[in-house]
């Protein structure tokens, strides 16, 4: 159980929901009157991202086999892949720019992919799947996605209550958390057999 929770924290960090709140609200609105549309957008976003991440869990072994790479070595790669997201969050507090959401199906592109299921979260899911096993990694993904979904749903309320600036600070803190998770991942990759 401890390992599932530890993995869930790592996955949650790379989903970076605080950094996604501005883009999500830009798509679905942030007023009380937008709750229905927000719920629909969120459901589609979360289900799509969950499906993509669970497929990544299931495909970990064949994927690593295709690359001819051990799970331990991949952890170092995952840590590097997480760097751009961490830098972006630390810099702007956002994982997606508002100009990126002007698409015909924003719940899919860019909110679900790469907003939630992006290279960083896919990388960590593959790394954790190799490290903790598929079942634990899948459980961690479900917990993290549910938590991220809840935060996105509460995004309008949070923004109204705390203000945009506070959301930005929380987004930047998410970047710092990703750095910590990436370092732990890289160190574990070096120390593992």
């Amino acid at each position, binding site marked *: 159980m401890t390992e599932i929770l530890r993995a869930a924290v790592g996955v949650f960090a790379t989903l970076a929901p605080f950094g996604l709140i501005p883009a999500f609200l830009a798509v679905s609105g942030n007023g009380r009157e937008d709750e229905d549309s927000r719920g629909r957008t969120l459901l589609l976003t979360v289900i799509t991202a969950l499906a993509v991440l669970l497929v990544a869990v299931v495909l970990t072994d064949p994927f690593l086999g295709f690359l001819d790479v051990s799970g331990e070595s991949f952890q170092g790669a995952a840590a590097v892949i997480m760097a751009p997201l961490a830098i972006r969050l630390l810099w702007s507090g956002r994982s997606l720019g508002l100009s*990126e959401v002007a*698409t015909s199906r924003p719940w899919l*592109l860019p909110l679900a992919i790469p907003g939630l299921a992006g290279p960083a979260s896919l990388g960590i899911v593959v790394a954790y799947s190799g490290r903790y096993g598929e079942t634990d990694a899948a459980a961690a993904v479900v917990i993290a996605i549910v938590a991220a979904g809840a935060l996105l749903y509460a995004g309008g309320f949070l923004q109204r209550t705390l203000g945009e600036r506070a959301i930005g600070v929380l987004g930047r803190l998410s970047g710092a958390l990703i750095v910590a998770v990436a370092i732990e991942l890289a160190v574990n990759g070096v120390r593992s*057999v």
Partner: protein
Amino acid sequence: MIARATLLSFGLWIVLLVFVRVAVIPPETCGIESEERIAESAVAAAAWMTRNQNVDGTYVYLYYNESDTIPNAYNEVRHAGVTMSLYQAAGRLSDREALATADDALAWMEENLVRHDDWAALALDGRSNRPPLGASALMVIAMAERRLATADTQYDDLMREVGRYLTALQRDDGGFYVSWQIDADAPDTVGTSRFYPGEALWALALLHEAFPGEGWDVHARDALHFITTQRDDVEDVDFPPLADQWTAYGLAEMVEWGLTDQQIDYARKLAGRFGILVRTASQREGSWYGSLLRGEDARASGVGTWTEGLAGLWRVAAYDDRLADIKDKTEERLHCISGILADRQFDAEEAADYDTPGLVEGAWFHEGETRMDDQQHAFSGITYALDALAEHQMREPEETLE
């Protein structure tokens, strides 16, 4: 419609992923897969050591295949190490020729013993005033391997006598002085060695296994405590723990006595150290850019020690549940690295192209040079790796040689 910014972002990601693939995770390739062929490699290595013994009991120390020359150099620590491996070959492969060769090498060691107080120590002529700890430790291990392979007890008193040199050099903190200065009748308090403590540890553990109740285990436990708590600091190891296969052998011997949590933690870190060395070696094999980024191949003596170390730690993991989680991964790495070793070894066909094929076949060359411990460490590593792959937990042979 996809926003231009999103497309740009995807493009940058692809560039990053290509960089990661090339620089961080080149493909890992493990050479020969067949365990049968890997076992043949061990046999060929043992044959090289047996074939290339001189009439006085020493071995061919160095050989350059391009110039077909044997330089005039020797080292008694490595002599004892090669003899140890030959006794392992006698026990593991029922190789009587290896036994006879090792016995001749043991006779050479007996001729080169220095006796003082109640102990005996192995030293070459030029170093007889300061016999190195490592040579005597490996001589004890060689005799212990002989005892395991043959159940012959004729060297028991000599084992104890040389063993007393190790305890004479042990400090209060469990560490060791590197030699005794006979003319000053005092230990060398200045010199240090990274690997002698591990060699002495394993020798003391084997002495306890051979002669329980004589107190050797107290010295072994003190040595293990020193190694796992202080050695890496004392020796200023940049990336601890030191990749020391002798400590791994010692841990494997002592796991049945009961290890502390701290020692198990050290064993885990040591397995990780060997593990990343193996993974890096396999990435070097996997692609041309792998070798470019990961540097040159290590020589077989180095690769062999990683294999020996992992094989020793596999025994710890197989016995102690606290390390059960690394057992399967350790087996994977052992299979991989022994396959790499087998792949790099010169076979009979390649050896035929050289002036003296008998000095080439079964050997590993690094920049045209082979040293006897290349064969020693590669042989021992492969032999115990195959034990691990066969889930053979006990180190001694199932049957002894008559």
